[in-house]
Protein backbone atom coordinates (compact mmCIF):
# COMPACT_ATOMS: atom_id res chain seq x y z
CA UNK A 1 0.00 0.00 0.00
CA UNK A 2 1.43 3.41 -0.84
CA UNK A 3 2.35 5.20 2.40
CA UNK A 4 2.90 8.96 1.71
CA UNK A 5 4.50 9.59 5.10
CA UNK A 6 7.30 7.04 4.46
CA UNK A 7 8.40 8.86 1.31
CA UNK A 8 12.01 8.01 0.41
CA UNK A 9 13.95 10.19 -1.97
CA UNK A 10 14.20 7.87 -5.02
CA UNK A 11 10.77 6.33 -5.67
CA UNK A 12 10.54 4.33 -8.91
CA UNK A 13 7.96 5.83 -11.28
CA UNK A 14 5.87 3.39 -13.32
CA UNK A 15 5.09 3.97 -17.04
CA UNK A 16 1.46 4.71 -16.13
CA UNK A 17 2.76 7.55 -13.96
CA UNK A 18 4.79 8.92 -16.88
CA UNK A 19 1.82 8.73 -19.25
CA UNK A 20 -0.37 10.69 -16.82
CA UNK A 21 2.46 13.15 -16.24
CA UNK A 22 2.91 13.59 -20.02
CA UNK A 23 -0.77 14.45 -20.46
CA UNK A 24 -0.59 17.02 -17.66
CA UNK A 25 2.55 18.60 -19.12
CA UNK A 26 1.04 18.62 -22.63
CA UNK A 27 -2.05 20.43 -21.36
CA UNK A 28 0.19 22.88 -19.46
CA UNK A 29 2.23 23.57 -22.60
CA UNK A 30 -0.89 24.00 -24.76
CA UNK A 31 -2.18 26.55 -22.21
CA UNK A 32 1.17 28.32 -22.34
CA UNK A 33 0.99 28.33 -26.15
CA UNK A 34 -2.54 29.76 -25.84
CA UNK A 35 -1.14 32.60 -23.73
CA UNK A 36 1.68 33.10 -26.25
CA UNK A 37 -0.90 33.35 -29.04
CA UNK A 38 -2.55 36.14 -27.03
CA UNK A 39 0.84 37.79 -26.50
CA UNK A 40 1.51 37.94 -30.25
CA UNK A 41 -2.15 38.85 -30.89
CA UNK A 42 -1.52 42.26 -29.35
CA UNK A 43 1.48 42.87 -31.60
CA UNK A 44 -0.20 41.62 -34.78
CA UNK A 45 -3.42 43.56 -34.01
CA UNK A 46 -1.34 46.72 -33.42
CA UNK A 47 0.58 46.10 -36.66
CA UNK A 48 -2.59 45.51 -38.69
CA UNK A 49 -4.19 48.60 -37.15
CA UNK A 50 -1.17 50.77 -37.93
CA UNK A 51 -1.12 49.54 -41.54
CA UNK A 52 -4.83 49.81 -42.21
CA UNK A 53 -5.60 53.15 -40.60
CA UNK A 54 -2.36 55.15 -40.74
CA UNK A 55 -2.22 57.22 -43.94
CA UNK A 56 1.51 57.85 -43.57
CA UNK A 57 2.37 54.17 -43.11
CA UNK A 58 4.97 53.02 -45.66
CA UNK A 59 6.01 49.34 -45.59
CA UNK A 60 9.75 49.80 -45.89
CA UNK A 61 11.53 47.29 -48.18
CA UNK A 62 13.23 44.53 -46.16
CA UNK A 63 15.75 41.97 -47.45
CA UNK A 64 13.45 39.20 -48.65
CA UNK A 65 16.41 36.93 -49.34
CA UNK A 66 17.31 36.77 -45.66
CA UNK A 67 13.65 36.40 -44.73
CA UNK A 68 13.14 33.41 -47.03
CA UNK A 69 16.39 31.83 -45.87
CA UNK A 70 15.27 32.22 -42.26
CA UNK A 71 11.91 30.66 -43.03
CA UNK A 72 13.55 27.62 -44.63
CA UNK A 73 15.99 27.34 -41.71
CA UNK A 74 13.17 27.41 -39.17
CA UNK A 75 11.07 24.89 -41.14
CA UNK A 76 14.04 22.53 -41.26
CA UNK A 77 14.55 22.94 -37.55
CA UNK A 78 10.88 22.03 -37.11
CA UNK A 79 11.49 18.86 -39.10
CA UNK A 80 14.58 17.92 -37.11
CA UNK A 81 12.72 18.62 -33.86
CA UNK A 82 9.86 16.36 -34.97
CA UNK A 83 12.38 13.63 -35.79
CA UNK A 84 14.07 14.12 -32.40
CA UNK A 85 10.69 13.57 -30.70
CA UNK A 86 10.05 10.55 -32.88
CA UNK A 87 13.40 9.01 -31.97
CA UNK A 88 13.06 9.74 -28.29
CA UNK A 89 9.69 7.94 -28.38
CA UNK A 90 11.52 4.95 -29.90
CA UNK A 91 14.18 5.13 -27.22
CA UNK A 92 16.96 5.82 -29.78
CA UNK A 93 19.15 7.91 -27.46
CA UNK A 94 21.99 8.59 -29.92
CA UNK A 95 19.75 9.68 -32.81
CA UNK A 96 17.67 11.90 -30.52
CA UNK A 97 20.82 13.64 -29.34
CA UNK A 98 21.95 14.15 -32.91
CA UNK A 99 18.63 15.65 -34.01
CA UNK A 100 18.43 17.94 -30.99
CA UNK A 101 21.93 19.19 -31.78
CA UNK A 102 20.87 19.74 -35.41
CA UNK A 103 17.85 21.77 -34.28
CA UNK A 104 20.09 23.79 -31.98
CA UNK A 105 22.50 24.53 -34.82
CA UNK A 106 19.69 25.59 -37.15
CA UNK A 107 18.43 27.93 -34.44
CA UNK A 108 21.93 29.42 -34.21
CA UNK A 109 21.91 29.95 -37.99
CA UNK A 110 18.55 31.67 -37.69
CA UNK A 111 19.83 34.06 -35.03
CA UNK A 112 23.02 34.75 -36.98
CA UNK A 113 21.04 35.61 -40.13
CA UNK A 114 18.81 37.81 -37.97
CA UNK A 115 21.90 39.50 -36.54
CA UNK A 116 23.22 40.25 -40.01
CA UNK A 117 19.88 41.75 -41.01
CA UNK A 118 19.81 43.92 -37.89
CA UNK A 119 23.39 45.06 -38.63
CA UNK A 120 22.39 46.08 -42.15
CA UNK A 121 19.41 48.01 -40.82
CA UNK A 122 21.50 49.77 -38.20
CA UNK A 123 24.09 50.72 -40.82
CA UNK A 124 21.36 52.12 -43.06
CA UNK A 125 20.14 54.09 -40.06
CA UNK A 126 16.78 52.34 -39.78
CA UNK A 127 16.58 52.38 -35.98
CA UNK A 128 13.28 51.51 -34.25
CA UNK A 129 12.73 55.20 -33.50
CA UNK A 130 13.36 56.05 -37.14
CA UNK A 131 9.96 55.04 -38.46
CA UNK A 132 6.89 53.26 -37.08
CA UNK A 133 7.31 50.36 -39.52
CA UNK A 134 10.77 49.67 -38.12
CA UNK A 135 9.32 50.05 -34.63
CA UNK A 136 7.01 47.13 -35.43
CA UNK A 137 9.75 45.27 -37.31
CA UNK A 138 12.11 45.29 -34.34
CA UNK A 139 9.27 44.66 -31.86
CA UNK A 140 7.94 41.59 -33.69
CA UNK A 141 11.25 40.06 -34.77
CA UNK A 142 12.89 41.05 -31.47
CA UNK A 143 10.35 39.20 -29.31
CA UNK A 144 10.30 36.30 -31.76
CA UNK A 145 14.09 36.14 -31.49
CA UNK A 146 13.80 36.10 -27.68
CA UNK A 147 11.48 33.11 -27.97
CA UNK A 148 13.96 31.38 -30.28
CA UNK A 149 16.70 32.08 -27.70
CA UNK A 150 14.51 30.60 -24.93
CA UNK A 151 13.95 27.53 -27.11
CA UNK A 152 17.69 27.17 -27.70
CA UNK A 153 18.41 27.19 -23.95
CA UNK A 154 15.82 24.47 -23.40
CA UNK A 155 17.25 22.43 -26.29
CA UNK A 156 20.74 22.70 -24.81
CA UNK A 157 19.51 21.46 -21.41
CA UNK A 158 17.60 18.60 -23.09
CA UNK A 159 20.63 17.63 -25.19
CA UNK A 160 22.75 17.46 -22.03
CA UNK A 161 20.07 15.44 -20.13
CA UNK A 162 19.68 13.14 -23.11
CA UNK A 163 23.43 12.53 -23.22
CA UNK A 164 23.29 11.78 -19.49
CA UNK A 165 20.71 9.13 -20.28
CA UNK A 166 17.70 10.50 -18.40
CA UNK A 167 15.22 9.63 -21.14
CA UNK A 168 13.97 6.22 -22.25
CA UNK A 169 10.99 4.83 -24.09
CA UNK A 170 8.66 5.53 -21.14
CA UNK A 171 9.99 8.85 -19.91
CA UNK A 172 10.58 11.27 -22.81
CA UNK A 173 7.89 13.89 -22.44
CA UNK A 174 10.29 16.83 -21.80
CA UNK A 175 11.53 16.47 -25.38
CA UNK A 176 7.98 16.18 -26.70
CA UNK A 177 6.89 19.29 -24.76
CA UNK A 178 9.94 21.23 -25.97
CA UNK A 179 8.96 20.08 -29.47
CA UNK A 180 5.51 21.62 -29.04
CA UNK A 181 7.09 24.91 -27.97
CA UNK A 182 9.56 24.87 -30.87
CA UNK A 183 6.89 24.24 -33.48
CA UNK A 184 4.91 27.15 -32.01
CA UNK A 185 7.93 29.47 -32.37
CA UNK A 186 8.13 28.34 -36.01
CA UNK A 187 4.36 28.95 -36.33
CA UNK A 188 4.77 32.56 -35.23
CA UNK A 189 7.52 33.07 -37.80
CA UNK A 190 5.32 31.60 -40.54
CA UNK A 191 2.82 34.42 -39.91
CA UNK A 192 5.50 37.02 -39.25
CA UNK A 193 7.46 36.43 -42.46
CA UNK A 194 4.75 37.44 -44.97
CA UNK A 195 3.35 40.16 -42.70
CA UNK A 196 6.66 42.02 -42.46
CA UNK A 197 8.65 41.01 -45.52
CA UNK A 198 6.27 40.21 -48.33
CA UNK A 199 3.05 42.22 -48.03
Amino acid at each position, binding site marked *: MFDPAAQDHHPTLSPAFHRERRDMRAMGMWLFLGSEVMFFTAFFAAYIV*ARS*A*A*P*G*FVAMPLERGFGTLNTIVLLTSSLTMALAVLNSKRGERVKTGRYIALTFLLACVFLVVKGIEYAHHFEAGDFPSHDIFFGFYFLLTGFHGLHVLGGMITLAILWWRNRRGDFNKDYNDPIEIAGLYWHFVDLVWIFLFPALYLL
Partner: protein
Amino acid sequence: MKRFLSFLVACLFLPALALAFNTHAAGFLPPVVSEQGRQIDALYGHILAIVVVIFVITEGILIYCVVAFRARPGHKARFFHGSTGVELILAGVPAVILLYITVVSARLWERLRMDEPKNAVHIEVLAEQFDWNFRYPGPDAVFGTPDDVMTNGECAVPVDRQVVFFTSSKDVIHSFFLPDSRVKEDVVPGLLNRIWTKWEVIPVWDLATQKRVLLSEKDFENAPVAFSGYAFKSKPHPGKKWYQFSDSARIGYNAYYYERDPSAKLMVMEHDHPVDVAPRYVLHYFEIACAQLCGPLHFAMRGTVRVLPEPEYEAWLKAQPKDDYLASKWAQVWDGVHPDFDRAL
Protein backbone atom coordinates in the same frame (compact mmCIF):
# COMPACT_ATOMS: atom_id res chain seq x y z
CA MET B 1 -29.21 37.71 21.34
CA LYS B 2 -26.66 40.52 21.65
CA ARG B 3 -24.95 39.35 18.50
CA PHE B 4 -28.19 39.31 16.59
CA LEU B 5 -29.33 42.74 17.77
CA SER B 6 -26.08 44.45 16.71
CA PHE B 7 -26.47 42.88 13.29
CA LEU B 8 -30.08 43.98 13.02
CA VAL B 9 -29.25 47.61 13.90
CA ALA B 10 -26.43 47.64 11.37
CA CYS B 11 -28.74 46.23 8.70
CA LEU B 12 -31.44 48.82 9.36
CA PHE B 13 -28.80 51.24 8.23
CA LEU B 14 -29.20 49.98 4.64
CA PRO B 15 -32.84 50.95 3.99
CA ALA B 16 -32.15 54.33 5.61
CA LEU B 17 -29.27 54.62 3.17
CA ALA B 18 -31.61 53.70 0.30
CA LEU B 19 -34.08 56.44 1.22
CA ALA B 20 -31.26 58.95 1.68
CA PHE B 21 -29.88 57.87 -1.69
CA ASN B 22 -33.25 58.41 -3.26
CA THR B 23 -34.17 61.82 -1.90
CA HIS B 24 -30.71 63.27 -1.85
CA ALA B 25 -29.56 61.95 -5.14
CA ALA B 26 -31.52 64.25 -7.37
CA GLY B 27 -30.11 67.17 -5.45
CA PHE B 28 -26.51 66.94 -6.63
CA LEU B 29 -26.92 67.18 -10.40
CA PRO B 30 -25.88 70.70 -11.46
CA PRO B 31 -28.78 72.60 -13.14
CA VAL B 32 -28.91 71.49 -16.78
CA VAL B 33 -28.56 74.02 -19.57
CA SER B 34 -28.76 72.03 -22.80
CA GLU B 35 -31.37 69.86 -24.48
CA GLN B 36 -29.01 66.85 -24.53
CA GLY B 37 -28.32 67.39 -20.83
CA ARG B 38 -32.01 67.23 -20.02
CA GLN B 39 -32.35 63.93 -21.89
CA ILE B 40 -29.31 62.48 -20.07
CA ASP B 41 -30.70 63.61 -16.71
CA ALA B 42 -34.07 62.06 -17.56
CA LEU B 43 -32.38 58.75 -18.43
CA TYR B 44 -30.28 58.96 -15.26
CA GLY B 45 -33.37 59.51 -13.10
CA HIS B 46 -35.14 56.70 -14.95
CA ILE B 47 -32.40 54.17 -14.28
CA LEU B 48 -32.05 55.49 -10.74
CA ALA B 49 -35.72 54.78 -10.03
CA ILE B 50 -35.41 51.20 -11.36
CA VAL B 51 -32.17 50.64 -9.45
CA VAL B 52 -33.49 51.94 -6.13
CA VAL B 53 -36.52 49.68 -6.40
CA ILE B 54 -34.32 46.63 -7.09
CA PHE B 55 -31.92 47.74 -4.33
CA VAL B 56 -34.61 48.01 -1.66
CA ILE B 57 -36.21 44.68 -2.68
CA THR B 58 -32.97 42.63 -2.70
CA GLU B 59 -31.50 44.18 0.47
CA GLY B 60 -34.89 43.81 2.10
CA ILE B 61 -34.96 40.09 1.23
CA LEU B 62 -31.42 39.76 2.59
CA ILE B 63 -32.33 41.37 5.90
CA TYR B 64 -35.58 39.42 6.14
CA CYS B 65 -33.66 36.17 5.61
CA VAL B 66 -31.19 37.05 8.35
CA VAL B 67 -34.01 37.87 10.74
CA ALA B 68 -36.48 35.11 9.87
CA PHE B 69 -34.09 32.22 9.23
CA ARG B 70 -31.54 32.79 12.01
CA ALA B 71 -30.42 29.62 13.79
CA ARG B 72 -32.53 29.12 16.91
CA PRO B 73 -33.41 25.97 18.83
CA GLY B 74 -36.10 23.96 17.09
CA HIS B 75 -35.65 25.72 13.73
CA LYS B 76 -34.44 23.34 11.00
CA ALA B 77 -33.09 24.40 7.59
CA ARG B 78 -35.22 23.25 4.65
CA PHE B 79 -33.33 21.04 2.20
CA PHE B 80 -33.88 22.04 -1.43
CA HIS B 81 -31.52 22.56 -4.33
CA GLY B 82 -33.56 25.13 -6.24
CA SER B 83 -35.91 24.71 -9.20
CA THR B 84 -35.28 25.62 -12.83
CA GLY B 85 -38.65 27.42 -12.91
CA VAL B 86 -37.48 29.91 -10.29
CA GLU B 87 -34.16 30.26 -12.08
CA LEU B 88 -35.89 31.19 -15.33
CA ILE B 89 -37.86 33.91 -13.58
CA LEU B 90 -34.74 35.16 -11.76
CA ALA B 91 -32.98 35.41 -15.12
CA GLY B 92 -36.01 36.55 -17.15
CA VAL B 93 -37.17 39.55 -15.12
CA PRO B 94 -33.76 41.25 -14.99
CA ALA B 95 -33.31 40.44 -18.69
CA VAL B 96 -36.50 42.31 -19.56
CA ILE B 97 -35.50 45.29 -17.42
CA LEU B 98 -32.02 45.36 -18.94
CA LEU B 99 -33.48 45.08 -22.44
CA TYR B 100 -35.67 48.10 -21.72
CA ILE B 101 -32.68 50.09 -20.47
CA THR B 102 -30.70 49.07 -23.56
CA VAL B 103 -33.39 50.25 -25.98
CA VAL B 104 -33.85 53.58 -24.20
CA SER B 105 -30.11 54.21 -23.99
CA ALA B 106 -29.46 53.19 -27.59
CA ARG B 107 -32.02 55.68 -28.90
CA LEU B 108 -30.52 58.52 -26.86
CA TRP B 109 -26.95 57.53 -27.78
CA GLU B 110 -27.80 57.80 -31.46
CA ARG B 111 -29.09 61.37 -30.96
CA LEU B 112 -26.04 62.29 -28.88
CA ARG B 113 -23.23 61.10 -31.09
CA MET B 114 -24.39 60.22 -34.54
CA ASP B 115 -26.35 63.08 -36.19
CA GLU B 116 -24.10 66.10 -36.31
CA PRO B 117 -26.07 69.40 -36.59
CA LYS B 118 -25.85 71.34 -39.86
CA ASN B 119 -25.02 75.10 -40.18
CA ALA B 120 -23.74 75.29 -36.61
CA VAL B 121 -21.07 77.55 -35.11
CA HIS B 122 -17.69 75.79 -35.52
CA ILE B 123 -15.04 76.28 -32.84
CA GLU B 124 -11.64 74.57 -32.82
CA VAL B 125 -10.35 73.57 -29.39
CA LEU B 126 -6.66 72.88 -28.91
CA ALA B 127 -6.00 71.36 -25.50
CA GLU B 128 -2.50 71.63 -24.13
CA GLN B 129 -0.98 70.74 -20.79
CA PHE B 130 -3.12 72.60 -18.41
CA ASP B 131 -4.91 75.07 -20.74
CA TRP B 132 -7.65 75.34 -23.35
CA ASN B 133 -7.17 77.36 -26.59
CA PHE B 134 -10.07 78.25 -28.87
CA ARG B 135 -10.14 79.39 -32.48
CA TYR B 136 -13.03 80.79 -34.48
CA PRO B 137 -12.96 80.77 -38.31
CA GLY B 138 -13.69 84.49 -38.37
CA PRO B 139 -15.72 86.26 -41.11
CA ASP B 140 -14.38 84.09 -43.99
CA ALA B 141 -15.64 80.92 -42.23
CA VAL B 142 -12.33 79.18 -42.98
CA PHE B 143 -9.91 78.03 -40.32
CA GLY B 144 -6.23 78.79 -40.66
CA THR B 145 -6.68 82.18 -42.32
CA PRO B 146 -5.30 85.43 -40.85
CA ASP B 147 -8.78 86.67 -39.90
CA ASP B 148 -9.26 83.84 -37.35
CA VAL B 149 -10.09 84.83 -33.79
CA MET B 150 -8.05 83.01 -31.14
CA THR B 151 -8.50 83.11 -27.40
CA ASN B 152 -6.96 81.25 -24.48
CA GLY B 153 -8.97 79.78 -21.61
CA GLU B 154 -12.21 81.56 -22.48
CA CYS B 155 -14.62 81.23 -25.41
CA ALA B 156 -17.97 82.78 -26.19
CA VAL B 157 -20.88 81.02 -27.84
CA PRO B 158 -24.22 82.32 -29.12
CA VAL B 159 -27.24 81.22 -27.12
CA ASP B 160 -29.90 78.94 -28.68
CA ARG B 161 -27.60 77.90 -31.56
CA GLN B 162 -25.88 74.59 -32.13
CA VAL B 163 -22.12 74.80 -31.51
CA VAL B 164 -19.75 72.12 -32.85
CA PHE B 165 -16.33 71.82 -31.16
CA PHE B 166 -13.49 70.24 -33.15
CA THR B 167 -11.17 69.11 -30.40
CA SER B 168 -7.61 67.93 -30.67
CA SER B 169 -4.66 68.08 -28.34
CA LYS B 170 -1.11 69.27 -28.57
CA ASP B 171 0.54 66.82 -26.17
CA VAL B 172 -1.41 64.31 -24.06
CA ILE B 173 -4.98 63.05 -23.81
CA HIS B 174 -7.30 65.58 -22.12
CA SER B 175 -11.09 65.53 -21.91
CA PHE B 176 -13.43 68.36 -22.90
CA PHE B 177 -16.03 68.30 -20.11
CA LEU B 178 -18.95 70.75 -19.84
CA PRO B 179 -20.64 69.73 -16.57
CA ASP B 180 -23.62 72.00 -16.99
CA SER B 181 -24.57 70.73 -20.45
CA ARG B 182 -23.58 67.11 -19.66
CA VAL B 183 -21.03 66.94 -22.48
CA LYS B 184 -17.76 65.04 -22.29
CA GLU B 185 -15.40 63.81 -25.02
CA ASP B 186 -11.73 62.94 -24.73
CA VAL B 187 -9.35 65.19 -26.60
CA VAL B 188 -6.78 62.89 -28.19
CA PRO B 189 -3.60 64.20 -29.87
CA GLY B 190 -3.45 63.27 -33.53
CA LEU B 191 -7.21 62.79 -33.73
CA LEU B 192 -9.99 65.26 -34.44
CA ASN B 193 -12.95 64.52 -32.14
CA ARG B 194 -16.17 66.41 -32.65
CA ILE B 195 -18.67 67.15 -29.94
CA TRP B 196 -21.68 69.45 -30.20
CA THR B 197 -24.20 71.01 -27.87
CA LYS B 198 -26.61 73.95 -27.63
CA TRP B 199 -26.87 76.35 -24.70
CA GLU B 200 -30.43 77.47 -23.96
CA VAL B 201 -29.81 79.89 -21.09
CA ILE B 202 -27.47 82.77 -20.37
CA PRO B 203 -25.61 82.63 -17.00
CA VAL B 204 -25.53 85.91 -15.07
CA TRP B 205 -24.25 86.71 -11.57
CA ASP B 206 -26.80 88.30 -9.25
CA LEU B 207 -24.85 90.92 -7.30
CA ALA B 208 -27.54 91.13 -4.58
CA THR B 209 -27.65 87.48 -3.64
CA GLN B 210 -24.12 86.62 -4.88
CA LYS B 211 -25.55 83.63 -6.75
CA ARG B 212 -25.56 82.53 -10.34
CA VAL B 213 -28.84 82.99 -12.19
CA LEU B 214 -29.78 81.38 -15.51
CA LEU B 215 -31.77 83.72 -17.75
CA SER B 216 -33.41 82.72 -21.01
CA GLU B 217 -32.74 84.96 -23.99
CA LYS B 218 -36.08 86.77 -23.57
CA ASP B 219 -35.52 87.56 -19.87
CA PHE B 220 -31.97 88.63 -20.67
CA GLU B 221 -33.30 91.38 -22.99
CA ASN B 222 -34.95 93.43 -20.30
CA ALA B 223 -32.84 92.39 -17.34
CA PRO B 224 -30.59 95.15 -15.92
CA VAL B 225 -27.32 93.40 -16.84
CA ALA B 226 -24.08 95.33 -16.48
CA PHE B 227 -21.50 94.74 -19.19
CA SER B 228 -18.50 95.44 -17.02
CA GLY B 229 -15.24 95.93 -18.79
CA TYR B 230 -13.92 92.63 -17.60
CA ALA B 231 -16.57 90.71 -19.44
CA PHE B 232 -14.57 91.09 -22.62
CA LYS B 233 -10.98 90.74 -21.43
CA SER B 234 -9.68 87.24 -21.72
CA LYS B 235 -6.89 88.01 -19.27
CA PRO B 236 -7.50 90.32 -16.27
CA HIS B 237 -3.80 91.22 -15.96
CA PRO B 238 -2.43 91.82 -19.47
CA GLY B 239 1.15 91.82 -18.20
CA LYS B 240 1.07 88.54 -16.23
CA LYS B 241 1.05 85.00 -17.59
CA TRP B 242 -1.94 84.01 -15.60
CA TYR B 243 -1.95 80.22 -16.08
CA GLN B 244 1.13 79.36 -14.09
CA PHE B 245 0.12 77.37 -11.04
CA SER B 246 2.52 79.07 -8.67
CA ASP B 247 0.81 82.37 -9.24
CA SER B 248 -2.55 81.78 -7.64
CA ALA B 249 -4.07 84.58 -9.66
CA ARG B 250 -5.62 81.93 -11.83
CA ILE B 251 -7.50 80.31 -8.93
CA GLY B 252 -8.18 83.66 -7.47
CA TYR B 253 -9.41 85.05 -10.81
CA ASN B 254 -13.04 84.44 -10.00
CA ALA B 255 -12.52 85.68 -6.45
CA TYR B 256 -11.04 88.91 -7.81
CA TYR B 257 -13.86 89.21 -10.26
CA TYR B 258 -16.60 89.21 -7.65
CA GLU B 259 -15.15 90.63 -4.52
CA ARG B 260 -15.03 94.11 -6.01
CA ASP B 261 -15.73 96.60 -3.27
CA PRO B 262 -19.33 97.87 -3.62
CA SER B 263 -18.17 101.43 -4.15
CA ALA B 264 -16.44 100.68 -7.46
CA LYS B 265 -18.78 102.13 -10.10
CA LEU B 266 -19.93 99.56 -12.66
CA MET B 267 -20.27 101.09 -16.12
CA VAL B 268 -23.62 100.07 -17.63
CA MET B 269 -23.61 100.41 -21.42
CA GLU B 270 -26.66 100.91 -23.63
CA HIS B 271 -25.25 100.00 -27.03
CA ASP B 272 -22.46 102.62 -26.90
CA HIS B 273 -23.35 105.28 -24.34
CA PRO B 274 -23.28 104.77 -20.58
CA VAL B 275 -26.54 104.74 -18.66
CA ASP B 276 -26.77 105.10 -14.91
CA VAL B 277 -28.99 102.18 -14.06
CA ALA B 278 -28.26 100.24 -10.89
CA PRO B 279 -27.01 96.97 -12.33
CA ARG B 280 -28.52 93.83 -10.81
CA TYR B 281 -26.57 91.29 -12.80
CA VAL B 282 -23.05 90.91 -14.17
CA LEU B 283 -22.25 88.54 -17.06
CA HIS B 284 -21.20 85.14 -15.78
CA TYR B 285 -19.97 81.95 -17.49
CA PHE B 286 -20.09 78.16 -17.49
CA GLU B 287 -16.96 76.21 -16.67
CA ILE B 288 -15.00 73.79 -18.88
CA ALA B 289 -13.18 71.05 -16.97
CA CYS B 290 -10.57 68.47 -17.99
CA ALA B 291 -11.81 65.01 -16.97
CA GLN B 292 -8.83 62.92 -18.11
CA LEU B 293 -5.59 62.80 -16.13
CA CYS B 294 -3.17 64.92 -18.16
CA GLY B 295 -0.34 65.63 -15.74
CA PRO B 296 0.33 67.14 -12.33
CA LEU B 297 -1.69 70.32 -12.94
CA HIS B 298 -4.68 68.39 -14.29
CA PHE B 299 -6.79 69.94 -11.53
CA ALA B 300 -6.02 73.51 -12.66
CA MET B 301 -6.96 73.03 -16.31
CA ARG B 302 -10.11 75.12 -16.28
CA GLY B 303 -11.75 77.10 -19.08
CA THR B 304 -14.83 79.27 -19.26
CA VAL B 305 -17.65 79.50 -21.77
CA ARG B 306 -19.49 82.81 -22.11
CA VAL B 307 -22.99 82.35 -23.48
CA LEU B 308 -24.10 85.57 -25.15
CA PRO B 309 -27.03 86.69 -27.30
CA GLU B 310 -26.21 86.98 -31.00
CA PRO B 311 -25.27 90.72 -31.21
CA GLU B 312 -23.12 90.58 -28.08
CA TYR B 313 -21.47 87.40 -29.43
CA GLU B 314 -20.52 89.21 -32.69
CA ALA B 315 -19.28 92.21 -30.68
CA TRP B 316 -17.23 89.89 -28.47
CA LEU B 317 -15.64 88.27 -31.53
CA LYS B 318 -14.66 91.60 -32.97
CA ALA B 319 -13.35 92.82 -29.63
CA GLN B 320 -10.88 89.94 -29.21
CA PRO B 321 -7.27 91.15 -29.41
CA LYS B 322 -4.88 89.54 -31.89
CA ASP B 323 -2.29 87.57 -29.93
CA ASP B 324 0.67 86.34 -31.91
CA TYR B 325 1.77 83.97 -29.13
CA LEU B 326 -1.54 82.15 -29.51
CA ALA B 327 -1.30 82.35 -33.29
CA SER B 328 2.15 80.74 -33.18
CA LYS B 329 0.80 77.96 -30.98
CA TRP B 330 -1.88 77.15 -33.56
CA ALA B 331 0.52 77.47 -36.47
CA GLN B 332 3.10 75.12 -34.86
CA VAL B 333 0.75 72.36 -33.92
CA TRP B 334 -2.47 72.69 -35.77
CA ASP B 335 -1.74 73.89 -39.23
CA GLY B 336 1.91 72.85 -39.30
CA VAL B 337 1.29 69.15 -38.79
CA HIS B 338 -2.32 68.66 -39.73
CA PRO B 339 -3.01 71.17 -42.53
CA ASP B 340 -6.32 69.87 -43.89
CA PHE B 341 -7.74 68.23 -40.80
CA ASP B 342 -5.94 65.15 -41.96
CA ARG B 343 -5.40 64.23 -38.36
CA ALA B 344 -6.15 60.55 -38.55
CA LEU B 345 -2.79 59.32 -37.30
